[in-house]
């Protein structure tokens, strides 16, 4: 019974993260590790595809907060795609839509980083 897995995939110079399961104080280290790995590889254009994410607690939001400044100061961004109702709801409660750009689909999130991306793979 794995509570969280995080796979990743590169599309051009965008890195896609696929958290599957839920992110709470117990599982957040894994998610944090995936973000830190992207940063250490200087992959600053990050899309978190939330299609497989059932739930995120403040620990997970804190992990994004802890990484966002370094990402943005390196000309990148962390953008989210395919939030389910629960996760969208948590974002709404916190007003996180002002801090992070969210997209209905992964393709839109990738395309938002510029026309060069998405075709590559």
């Amino acid at each position, binding site marked *: 019974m794995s*509570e969280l897995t995080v796979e990743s995939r590169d599309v051009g110079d965008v890195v896609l993260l696929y958290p599957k399961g*839920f992110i*709470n*104080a*117990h599982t957040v280290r894994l998610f944090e590790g995936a973000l830190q790995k992207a940063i250490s590889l200087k992959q600053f254009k990050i899309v978190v595809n939330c299609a497989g994410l059932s*739930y995120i*607690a*403040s*620990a997970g*939001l*804190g*992990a994004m*907060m*802890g990484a*966002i*400044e370094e990402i*943005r100061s390196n000309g990148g961004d962390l953008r989210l795609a395919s939030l389910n*109702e*629960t996760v969208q*709801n*948590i974002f709404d*409660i*916190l*007003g*996180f839509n*002002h*801090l992070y750009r969210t997209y209905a689909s992964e393709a839109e999130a990738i395309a938002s980083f510029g026309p060069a991306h998405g075709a590559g793979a």
Partner: protein
Amino acid sequence: MVRAPDRVSGREESRRPPPAPSPAARVPRGRNKPSLILSLPSETAYLGLVREVTKKMAEVGGFAEPVAERLSLAVDEAATNVLEHAYKGATDREVELRFEDRGPDFRVELVDTGQMMDPRAVPQVDLDKFVTERRTGGLGMHLMEKIMDSVTFRRSARRNVCALVKHKTPLGEEPPGR
């Protein structure tokens, strides 16, 4: 980070010890509503169980699924705070969660024997400053207060009790359907 003093009073409101029991609380046993007590070791591995038990109890209490999801987030956050702050990560302690369906109120109490809550330690959330100040804390309390109708902390008999309450029926509205 300490919150700005001018916003202390509004917050303190929801943290003072609860007043005398409400009429519903005085109803003795046989109140004909489910109640549940969950005792857990102070390990984050059990937070998933906390969330699922909360969601079920909220649904049985009559809340629609999206509301039950939010309530389970608030209780997850409260339990996480007990583990991280009251017990400072020690995994050999115990947390008790008490769920009670008091007619108009859905009530969850978290009981621990760890370090006392210091309300002044709770930062005020200012989203604009989050990014520039590299802030990562304060979101849990903020979520709890946004989701619940009341969040109070009290200390009695060397235990800390965090009480979360959600009214089932906003004044003047119909009770929520199953």
